[in-house]
């Protein structure tokens, strides 16, 4: 191995280290160390398992201490003698880093430090921490790079393990559907995830404060029962070991489940973890299901009663003979109504399961609309709304006649139900290879909120106290139109009425 030339006094500690490990020439007169000092320092350096090196930049000669060769798992004779040869010992993924650090160290005055990995001859990877400096000549040109390094594989592994654990905790925290907040016993926010901030709509300015008190003040106005909420929070902070699970209702209709339990380090309670789960959709679905069952029962009981009273009246022979045909008419109408109701339920089942079979044929849209309007005559008379049909074109497309009729009937039925006895207009047109159909009423209209979910199943845009119906008609329309390859949209002004517009490709689905 090449030897390093005489150290200048300015080499300082590095010089001493090299010398004491037996790799530097004897001290020059200017180095103020004693033999005893050197022995002690050499012992200390070995004990500390610190390796030292020097690289003569001009001659490209590397000199390494015995400890450094040991760290590299090599014999003295095997160790790199040039900078490029040293790079061969570096882990391939870290070569660029080492090269960069050295280039920068040569370019700029001042010490450097960095970590890199090496690969020993037996294949083992170790991580080294290196600190060093560059000696320069009078003109500032670098002529020697010296430093020391030691094996930090175990601490680095421990640090990486800690980073992995933290990353795991952080990723888990951010991946959960729940909003999580951890507060210490002094009321400082220790951790929270983005979901928590999103759920409670907390802006960065408030979250940055890191104080639970400020978060609580911010969320207060969102709650349906802020006083009850605060009582519970205070109660839990006053009982550090208590666990709690409850439900929070918000002014805007949202519902959260809240779970809280103490945070412990060993046996010591150091804070409290709050977990919030948005169950608004689930609650709405439950409410919708309950409402659906109640309305379904209501929708069945009405026709059943009519049929029962009609049949019993006839059985008892108490009715004048001229009334009997009218009773039978009512009973028949109600039976049809029940049949339609059951069909509707079955259709929704089929549509949701994707099991709808279409019988495609050449169908005249104007014919279908006129037939549906004729079928709705009685319903129209009862509602007080007259249906007018106008056709600018006579589109004929490849559709399922029965299903198309169902679409039109549902739209007309909807328009009559909410039309407030005002006229209902149907307009048929065509646009390139598409047919258009618009059904307009001038009734109660639809609020902006209700418009968003009007085609969802079991969505009822009106209060169940006032209007019956399962809330399936428009969902069926939407699903059938899609099955026919078309689309349906709605525009509405509350109090002025609504227009449902269908666009159907003539070529079918």
């Amino acid at each position, binding site marked *: 191995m090449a030897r390093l030339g005489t150290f200048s006094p300015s080499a300082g500690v590095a010089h001493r280290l090299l010398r004491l490990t037996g790799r530097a020439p004897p001290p020059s007169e200017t180095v103020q160390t004693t033999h005893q000092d050197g022995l002690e320092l050499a012992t200390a350096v070995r004990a500390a398992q610190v390796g030292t090196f020097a690289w003569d930049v001009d001659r490209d000669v590397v000199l390494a201490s015995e400890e450094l060769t040991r760290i590299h798992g090599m014999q003295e004779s095997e160790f790199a003698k040039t900078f490029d040869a040293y790079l061969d010992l570096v882990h391939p993924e870290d070569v660029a880093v080492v090269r960069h650090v050295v280039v920068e160290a040569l370019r700029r005055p001042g010490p450097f430090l960095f970590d890199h990995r090496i690969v020993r001859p037996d294949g083992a990877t170790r991580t080294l921490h290196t600190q060093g400096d560059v000696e320069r000549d009078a003109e500032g040109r670098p002529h020697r790079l010296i430093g020391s390094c030691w094996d930090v594989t175990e601490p680095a592994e421990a640090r990486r393990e800690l980073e992995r654990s933290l990353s795991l905790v952080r990723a888990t925290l951010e991946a959960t559907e729940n909003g999580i907040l951890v507060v210490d016993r002094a009321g400082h926010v220790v951790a929270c995830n983005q979901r928590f901030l999103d759920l409670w709509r907390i802006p960065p300015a408030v979250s940055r404060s890191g104080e639970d008190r400020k978060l609580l003040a911010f969320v207060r106005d969102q709650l349906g029962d802020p006083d009850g909420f605060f009582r519970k929070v205070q109660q839990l902070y006053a009982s550090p070991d208590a666990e709690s699970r409850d439900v929070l209702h918000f002014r805007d209709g949202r519902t959260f489940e809240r779970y809280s339990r103490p945070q412990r380090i060993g046996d010591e309670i150091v804070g409290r973890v709050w977990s919030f789960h948005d169950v608004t959709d689930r609650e709405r679905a439950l409410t919708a299901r309950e409402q659906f069952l109640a309305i379904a029962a209501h929708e069945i*009981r009405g026709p059943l009663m009519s049929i029962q009273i009609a049949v019993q009246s006839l059985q008892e022979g108490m009715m004048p003979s001229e009334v009997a045909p009218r009773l039978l008419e009512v009973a028949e109408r109600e039976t049809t109504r029940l049949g339609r109701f059951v069909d509707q339920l079955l259709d929704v089942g089929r549509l949701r399961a994707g099991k709808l079979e279409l019988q495609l044929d050449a169908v005249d849209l104007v014919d279908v609309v006129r037939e549906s309007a004729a079928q709705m005559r009685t319903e129209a008379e009862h509602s007080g709304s007259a249906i007018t049909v106008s056709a600018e074109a006579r589109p004929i497309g490849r559709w399922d006649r029965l299903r198309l009729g169902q679409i039109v009937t549902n739209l007309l039925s909807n328009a009559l139900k909410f039309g407030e006895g005002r006229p209902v207009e149907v307009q048929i047109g065509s646009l390139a290879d598409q047919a258009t159909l618009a059904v307009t009423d001038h009734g109660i209209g639809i609020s902006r909120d209700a418009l968003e979910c009007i085609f969802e199943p079991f969505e009822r845009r009106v209060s169940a106290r006032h209007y019956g119906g399962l809330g399936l008609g428009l969902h069926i329309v939407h699903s059938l139109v899609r099955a026919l390859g078309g689309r349906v949209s709605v525009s509405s002004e509350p109090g002025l009425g609504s227009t449902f517009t269908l666009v159907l490709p003539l070529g079918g689905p």
Partner: protein
Amino acid sequence: MTERHRSVLVVDDDDDIRELLALVLGARGYEVAGAGDGMRALAHLKGHPPPDLVLLDLMMPHLAGDDLVSLLREDPALSDVPVVILSGDGAACERAASLPVQGCLLKPVNLRDLLSTVERFADGHARS
């Protein structure tokens, strides 16, 4: 003195039920009027003598049954008209218990129960 016809007002948004009750009760000698919702019922009541009984559905457009009951009870001319709830809402009779009404029938009601209820309230009211 001729006997006055006992009158029943059926308030229900189901056209068939209104028609059917008009036929059945009419055949029993009642004078039956119908209204499709609470607003129409109010309009009818303003233009006619108070009925002897109101058969009232709960779920209706514009003005629901329970709201109509409140309005009737506030009106001195109508405050003592018997009201019987006739509803398909499974919880109707629980709700009726907290309303100032005289009875509750859950659809589907059979003919005998319907007639006996109508007789009890309408006839009782007509005699009083």
